[in-house]
């Protein structure tokens, strides 16, 4: 390959063995825009030292992540060459070599061929030595073309990973090659159909796989991994295109960063037309010199990714096929691994969907409003507090008893009401990863036909001081339900670390603690009003000594 046999070469050249393709491939897709590709390949190795080259690897391969196992002999080094064959690279690698120049004479169409040596080829143009002397290519105005005798050995039409192996036993071996490659993504989406009484939902979970690369996998074993991996930014030697995962404090930031990186990557891997061109430049039109630029930098700009496939379109089907084969789940370390139970073709620039969950789940539908009376100042014109719209919520227990009890990889949950056979979009919510036994509460939409008015009254400062209090708020909350059915409303009064010693000494309704807050559950009658009153107090305390 690239081993140069100089006059002083000390070692015997290893025999080159090329493995053109994988026998079998497994693709494990992660949420962070990459996949682990595991290939099995059969190779026939001779006894002596070998350079084993793997063709047909994914072009976005991360060479430092490659692992080759089951070789049966010592692996001395591995090399990844991605000097893709392009007209520019062909010229560059042919400097000093002899080529044929073909000129077609005007008028007669006579074709004249002669031998020439490429003396120089760079962004300033191509200089040749012909039998007559030195001259520039494509400057005479004659139709001219170069014919190369052979392909330079180290240019590849496709990226190539090669390894150098020590001598060992000759024979056929089945080996495994694995590596990480960018340009893959997956997501989970949920479709929930609520029954008319909103007491249960038919929940379908979809896995959507996306392959943005130009690699196609035939009969591939496909898995996806749900969970949050710790990743290092690619610029710091890691794998992540979204940055160091420690930089994200919450899931929505991470989701946003992933989306941003995905769009960038997609643009990156998009077909870029046929902008390939040979080196240009002639003596009649002198170009400004760029002295510090190395050859390859100027060439790099012309390197193009050619994509032949078409981009698949993403469809969110709402129908679960009867008896649909479900994706299988297993634990992988502390993550969930979902496996397509059948071998599948994952084609270049393709989107694929599969069902991984189909359950009938008990739910509760209610409305919720969280607030802090301490922040409500009694200045007489609290218009904001006269028409408050609570959130429309759906909650469920992720337990077998509720009909579920399955890990739920985070994703968009879209809910539909069914009434008289019609389906109505009830709202959507982004759900984070949900393990079994963790309750799920989803904020779907703003409520319609349900509003609140809140009135807060405070005593004058003297009265407060006499009662040894730093705060007393008498809250009156009215809920108006314009719906034809009664609804459940949950009110939460904040009681966190910023309100030490907060109590509710008086309340019209029973309350409990939820997430550390004071919480009430109210039944608001159909086309009716419901009133909640309570008193919030915080003690006054002595100064520090």
């Amino acid at each position, binding site marked *: 390959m690239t081993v140069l046999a100089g006059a002083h070469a000390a070692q015997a050249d290893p025999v080159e063995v090329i493995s053109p393709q994988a026998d079998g491939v497994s693709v494990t897709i992660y949420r962070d825009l990459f996949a682990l590709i595991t290939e099995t390949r059969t190779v026939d190795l001779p006894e002596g030292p070998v350079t084993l080259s793997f063709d047909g690897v994914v072009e976005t391969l991360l060479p430092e992540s490659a692992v080759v196992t089951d070789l049966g002999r010592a692996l001395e080094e591995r090399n990844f*060459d991605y000097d893709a064959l392009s007209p520019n690279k062909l010229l560059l690698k042919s400097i000093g070599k002899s080529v044929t120049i073909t000129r077609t004479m005007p008028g007669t169409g006579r074709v004249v061929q002669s031998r020439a040596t490429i003396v*120089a080829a760079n962004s300033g143009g191509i200089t040749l030595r012909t039998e007559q002397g030195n001259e520039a290519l494509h400057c005479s105005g004659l139709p001219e073309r170069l014919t190369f005798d052979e392909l330079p050995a180290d240019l590849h039409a496709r990226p190539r990973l090669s390894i150098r192996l020590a001598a060992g036993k000759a024979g056929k071996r089945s080996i495994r090659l694995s590596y990480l490659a960018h340009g893959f993504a997956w997501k989970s989406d949920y479709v929930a159909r609520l029954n008319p009484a909103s007491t249960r939902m038919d929940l379908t979970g979809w896995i959507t796989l996306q392959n943005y690369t130009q690699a196609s996998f035939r009969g591939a074993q496909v898995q996806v991994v749900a969970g949050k991996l710790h990743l290092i930014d690619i610029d710091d030697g890691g794998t992540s295109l979204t940055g160091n995962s420690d930089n994200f404090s919450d899931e929505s930031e991470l989701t946003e960063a992933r989306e941003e990186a995905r769009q960038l990557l997609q643009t990156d891997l998009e077909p870029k037309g046929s902008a390939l061109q040979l080196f240009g430049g002639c003596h009649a039109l002198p170009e400004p010199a760029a002295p*510090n630029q190395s050859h390859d930098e100027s060439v790099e700009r012309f390197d193009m990714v050619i994509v032949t496939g078409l981009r698949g379109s993403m469809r969110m089907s709402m129908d679960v096929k009867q008896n649909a084969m479900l994706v299988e789940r297993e634990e992988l370390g502390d993550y969930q691994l979902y496996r397509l139970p059948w071998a599948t073709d994952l084609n270049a620039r393709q989107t694929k969907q599969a069902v991984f969950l189909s359950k009938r789940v008990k739910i509760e539908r209610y409305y919720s409003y969280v607030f802090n009376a301490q922040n409500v100042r009694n200045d007489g014109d609290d218009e904001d507090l006269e028409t408050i719209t609570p959130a429309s919520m759906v909650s469920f227990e992720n337990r077998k008893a509720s009909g579920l009890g399955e890990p739920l990889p985070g994703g968009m949950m879209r809910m539909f009401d069914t009434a008289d056979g019609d389906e109505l979009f009830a709202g959507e919510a982004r759900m984070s990863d949900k393990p079994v036994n963790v309750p799920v509460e989803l904020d779907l939409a703003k409520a319609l036909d349900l509003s609140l008015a809140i009135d807060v009254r405070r005593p004058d400062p003297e009265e407060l001081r006499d009662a040894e209090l730093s705060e007393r708020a008498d809250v009156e909350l009215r809920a108006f339900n314009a719906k034809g059915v009664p609804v459940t409303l949950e009110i939460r009064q904040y009681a966190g670390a910023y309100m030490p010693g907060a109590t509710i000494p008086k309340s019209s309704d029973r309350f409990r603690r939820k997430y550390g807050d004071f919480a009430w559950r109210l039944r608001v009658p159909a086309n009716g009003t419901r009133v909640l009153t309570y008193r919030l107090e915080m003690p006054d305390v002595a100064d520090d000594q």
Partner: protein
Amino acid sequence: MRNICWHLFTSIGATLATANALAAGAAPDREVSLTIYNKNIALIEHVRPISSPAGRQRIEFAGVSAQIVPETVSFVAPNVVLIEQNFDYDLLTPAKLMEKAVGSQVRLVRVNPATGAETSETAEVLSTVGGVVLRIGTRIEVLREDNLPTRVIFDKVPENLRAQPTLSVLINASKPVNEVARLTYLSRGFTWAADYVAVFDEPKSTTSMQGWITLHNTSGTSFANARTQLVAGDVNLVASEEQWWTNWQQRRSTNQRSSGTEGSGREQLGDYYIYPIKQLTTVANNQTKQVSFLDAGAVKASKGYELTFYGFQSNTEPQSAEVRMRFANSKAGGMGEQLPSGVVRIYMRDARGQPQFVGEDHIGHTSAGSEMALKIGDAFDVTVQPTLVQTRRITKRKAEYDMSYLVRNARSTPSVVTLRQYGLWRENEVLKESISGRRIDSGAFAWDVPVPANDETTLTFTVTTSW
């Protein structure tokens, strides 16, 4: 590539205008060595036989890095006095070829567009500014003004126009030279990093650990059969490359005095770790090359869950525990090597026995004997949900908090979660706790919370805090 890089450019008849010097050649490298540092820089040494007649001679070195830092070139050969060294960037292009032909003769071959008949004339190039002005006999013309096909043929290529950047030295030799020269310089376009692959076998509490040096050559030049070594350590502490080079030269000369051999000077680069690649290797341009430097089969390793909280608050969503792989880089633990900084990629086997990627973490330069706790990722099924249950105000700047941490384990195996609570300074007391904890530093406590399989455990504690 090999023709450009390793073919010797003995420019025929090369003369310097000022000195009566002949261009002499250096033979191909007898040895080439690369010392690659972490940060886009390498020290390259070529050892080449040179031969030239006595007197002032120019010697050209082809095959040097295209990203050479010219001011760092050092040329040493016995019995040779160096006069000057040049690095020519003047690339041979059609335009340059014409510019350099101003004042000299070229041949024009015109082709008749109707008949295809060729006519040849000799012309003198007068100017190349905004077009080529020629004198043909007594006529003055502009090249290809008529747009008719016209080839321009140059007898020779000026010797200072190069197909690639070329290094040359001008020497003065009192007698004919037949020596071995040593050419050293710094070059950009080289990086290396360590990459580790760990296949963690949780049931067996071991991990394999393979270390690879990954080096990347974007210098524009390939180096065949190079003696290669990698230096771990931050060399960019000094402001400029030139200053760094000066320091390096001083350090090297110190070493040479003490050791008395040139070759060993390298092994004493201050406190840096050096990783020599055992055999000669070819470092091709635009190549990512990996060489194994560590292969430990069964290092003792264990998994742990951790989560750190910095304040006292309630969360509506449970938080995933961090998963860490703990191991000791010690001889007793199965390793005990100097580990250069890099990224460790961790794999675990799925139900079918196939290794799957589970996460990665960065390690700094790590000496033997260090305890490591690499973060793998967040546990899907082990979560912690904090609730500030009750608060009591003691004074204006002091309060008591009842905290409760609900630790859930949806896994089929029991787990222990190490929970760290910050915001607990020296004056803060833990009044009550459901599991006994420990102070881990001046601002934090830690509790190890055991959780049975498919179950949950609530850690509660009461603390006084002040602000």
